[in-house]
């Protein structure tokens, strides 16, 4: 009798989930993005009617940085269609970070960014120079308010604050979305503005200055403005896509204040270093296309493609594919993911400066993130529905693992004395994440 009652209750709960999902789908293509469709409708209690999405991520690079990142997102959908969303992210990073200098056959000694000799560190011959004292904590809070303006128009505004001991950022954005074609098509347009303040440890280096002279100034700023035009389209009962064009422009101090470039002679000996010098503005443009296709009742797939270019000479292509396979009456799923990425180098990227070349005031940076490389990501996620908490019908626990690998495409001629050294070691990283939402 008890078993029969539990079975009937489980069926009723499942039917309620299905009806709620179907109702939300009637909101149209706009509901395909945003938190609305997953939110519990408002009824009673303080947090009873908020949906909570949380995750704890651990990121580990081979021999370099490791990070722990807890994230919490809470959201609420009101009866009149308004939606509120708040999130908090905390990052704690420790480990060793490449300082940009080139691997050498001799030992190399560097000062910490603060310039205190007590914090000097030495890199052994044949090893990639990394600052072993890297440590940073970041807290970011954000919120979004979406409100229907008419039956087919929705306005959304958001803000985000991010704070580190040497960096502070404020971002605001606003977008408007319009549904038509029986809500099968949604056009959206948004703008964003970002204000960043940099207060590097020991001061911001003068771009291109001699590392030994320690020419530093006070705090710096950079600002960015972006726009995004998008269309979301339901093609068939099983196929939905989104296409976005975006552009953003940043101005100000765009250097990494902790990155230096080695100066070497023709024999491959390091004779000095200078701070990197990037242009003080950058414009990026991108095209992004994402698809969702249902391949039957249990399986769906997502494919996204992105092309990006900027006026620093970087071009990149990204393709990401995932497969979502549900089973056990959709109470569990697994999701394998594969991502492929490649980028060309910025026009001023150089792994080192040859001292035999004429002095130049041109831009230069050895930051490997501006070099030419390709990267692969392999991921797997498992999620399990669990009984809900309090008045909630269900919760979901998930675990996700990703492996990320960067491989450099080297085209720079290297002095014979440096050949045989691993000058471009690439990067290998693992991400492990557990998630819980209710």
């Amino acid at each position, binding site marked *: 009798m008890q078993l029969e009652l539990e079975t009937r209750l489980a069926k009723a709960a499942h039917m309620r989930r299905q009806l709620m999902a179907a109702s939300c789908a009637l909101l149209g293509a706009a509901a395909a993005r945003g938190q609305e469709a997953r939110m519990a409708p408002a009824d009673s209690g303080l947090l009873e009617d908020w949906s909570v999405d949380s*995750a704890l991520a651990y990121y580990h690079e081979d021999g370099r940085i490791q990070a722990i990142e807890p994230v919490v997102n809470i959201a609420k959908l009101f009866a009149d269609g308004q939606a509120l969303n708040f999130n908090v992210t905390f990052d704690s990073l420790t480990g060793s970070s490449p300082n940009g200098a080139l691997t050498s056959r001799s030992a190399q000694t560097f000062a910490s960014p603060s310039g205190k000799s007590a914090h000097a560190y030495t890199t052994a011959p044949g090893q990639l120079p990394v600052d072993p004292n890297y440590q940073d904590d970041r807290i970011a809070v954000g919120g979004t308010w979406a409100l229907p303006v008419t039956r087919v128009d929705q306005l959304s505004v958001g803000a985000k604050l991010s704070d580190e001991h040497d960096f502070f950022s404020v971002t605001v954005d606003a977008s408007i979305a319009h549904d038509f074609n029986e809500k099968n098509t949604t056009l959206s347009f948004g703008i964003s503005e970002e204000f960043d303040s940099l207060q590097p440890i020991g001061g911001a280096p003068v771009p291109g200055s001699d590392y030994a002279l320690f020419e530093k100034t006070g705090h710096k700023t950079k600002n960015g403005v972006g726009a995004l035009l998008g269309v979301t*389209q339901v093609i068939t009962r099983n196929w939905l896509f989104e296409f976005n064009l975006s552009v953003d422009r940043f101005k100000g101090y765009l250097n990494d204040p902790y990155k230096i470039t080695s100066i070497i002679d023709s024999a491959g000996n390091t004779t000095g270093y200078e701070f990197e010098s990037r242009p003080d503005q950058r414009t990026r443009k991108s095209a992004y296309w994402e698809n969702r296709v249902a391949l039957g009742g249990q399986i769906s797939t997502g494919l996204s493609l*992105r092309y990006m270019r900027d006026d620093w000479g970087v071009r990149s292509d990204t393709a990401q594919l995932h497969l979502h396979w549900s089973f056990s009456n959709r109470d569990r799923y697994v999701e394998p993911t594969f991502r492929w990425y490649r980028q060309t180098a910025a026009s001023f990227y150089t792994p080192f400066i040859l001292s035999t070349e004429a002095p130049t005031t041109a831009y230069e940076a050895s930051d490997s993130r501006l070099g030419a490389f390709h990267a692969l990501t392999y991921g797997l996620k498992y999620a399990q529905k669990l009984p809900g908490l309090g008045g909630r019908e269900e919760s979901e626990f998930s675990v996700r693992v990703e492996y990320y690998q960067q491989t450099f495409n080297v085209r720079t001629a290297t002095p014979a004395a440096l050949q045989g050294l691993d000058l471009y070691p690439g990067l290998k990283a693992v991400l492990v994440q557990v998630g819980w939402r209710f």
Partner: protein
Amino acid sequence: MNFKQICIFCLLSSTAIAGGCVSLGVKPWQRDVMAREDMRLDANPLDAAIDDHMYFSKEASSGGRSFAGGGCGCN
């Protein structure tokens, strides 16, 4: 293919899609598959945010899915 060509291609495609909108899409009662959570474009927003943060700090590209700004001193 440069960015201008891609934009022209996309514009033409969008025009074709918009022109064909009358025949694209489904009726409200045919949205059962679209109602599935796995068919949402942001089915896992925290996963996407954590991934985007990782890629933002290790690559020269960001954004596309949404605004490109990072709000992070890591790049």
